[in-house]
């Protein structure tokens, strides 16, 4: 198992406008097919004007997207960023607690079924400060060849941004690759 060396440093805010929810991958275990990602909800964002006036909470669909993106980084890491996972089905999602702006989250995902061209994963989002479970779900992905080079290159850039190193012998945390 590989863990990042700075688990206590604050994660940067998730970029809601560009739909980049994962701030940092803090753990990647290829053998155990698990990953842990961190994300911080911005203190302020226009979505909170409507969701909801006087009661700002993170929309459940966006928490679900955080689970999906975390699962996506795991699947990409498992296949060496050779094929792209696309969310295909939400088997079950439970939104257990309200999450307010400024909260830091940890999303843990595990691949529980490796199919031919698809995979099924369990994911859980917790509050970083007290590990309270916020939401969880089972998600299915189709895994297909990259539709074009633009997306492949973008995912390579995103990998670096979230702290992953893609090398010929596999994917690992950047911090691990540097040592």
């Amino acid at each position, binding site marked *: 198992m590989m863990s990042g060396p700075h688990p206590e440093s604050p994660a940067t805010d998730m970029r809601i406008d560009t739909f980049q929810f994962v701030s940092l991958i803090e753990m990647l275990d290829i053998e155990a097919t698990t990953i842990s990602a961190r994300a911080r909800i911005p203190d302020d964002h226009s979505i909170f004007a409507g969701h909801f006036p006087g009661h700002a909470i993170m929309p459940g669909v966006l928490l679900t997207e955080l689970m999906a993106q975390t699962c996506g980084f795991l699947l990409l890491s498992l296949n060496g960023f050779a094929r792209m996972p696309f969310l*295909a*089905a939400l088997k079950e999602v439970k939104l257990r607690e309200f999450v307010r702006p400024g909260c830091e989250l940890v999303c843990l995902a595990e691949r529980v*079924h*490796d*199919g*031919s*061209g*698809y995979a*099924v994963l369990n994911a859980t989002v917790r509050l970083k400060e007290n590990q309270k479970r916020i939401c969880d779900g089972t998600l*299915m992905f*189709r895994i297909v060849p990259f539709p074009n080079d633009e997306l492949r290159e973008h995912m390579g850039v995103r990998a670096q941004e979230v702290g992953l190193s893609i090398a010929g012998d596999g994917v690992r945390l950047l911090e691990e690759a540097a040592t």
Partner: protein
Amino acid sequence: MSSTFDTVAGFISEICDIPREQIKPESHVTEDLNVDSLDFLDAVFNIEQKFGISIPLDDWTQQVNDGVVKGSAYFVLENFCTEVDKLRASADSATAA
């Protein structure tokens, strides 16, 4: 028909909301039953879980797309179940070894 067929037909009926009596061994998954690819993937997932096998769906699809075999070789249910039985036998022998 085999218990494999009953299991497969049961999953397809449940997942795709198709009356069980409409699902026949000679039914083609897409052409006769109009099962879409995601529902079929869901059925495959359940079949794999039930029987402890891995169905090489990508490989089958590639063979059909390349014209190596006809789609009916894998996607008519009686043929699909024959392939599932082969995978089950292979999995059983691997477990016994």
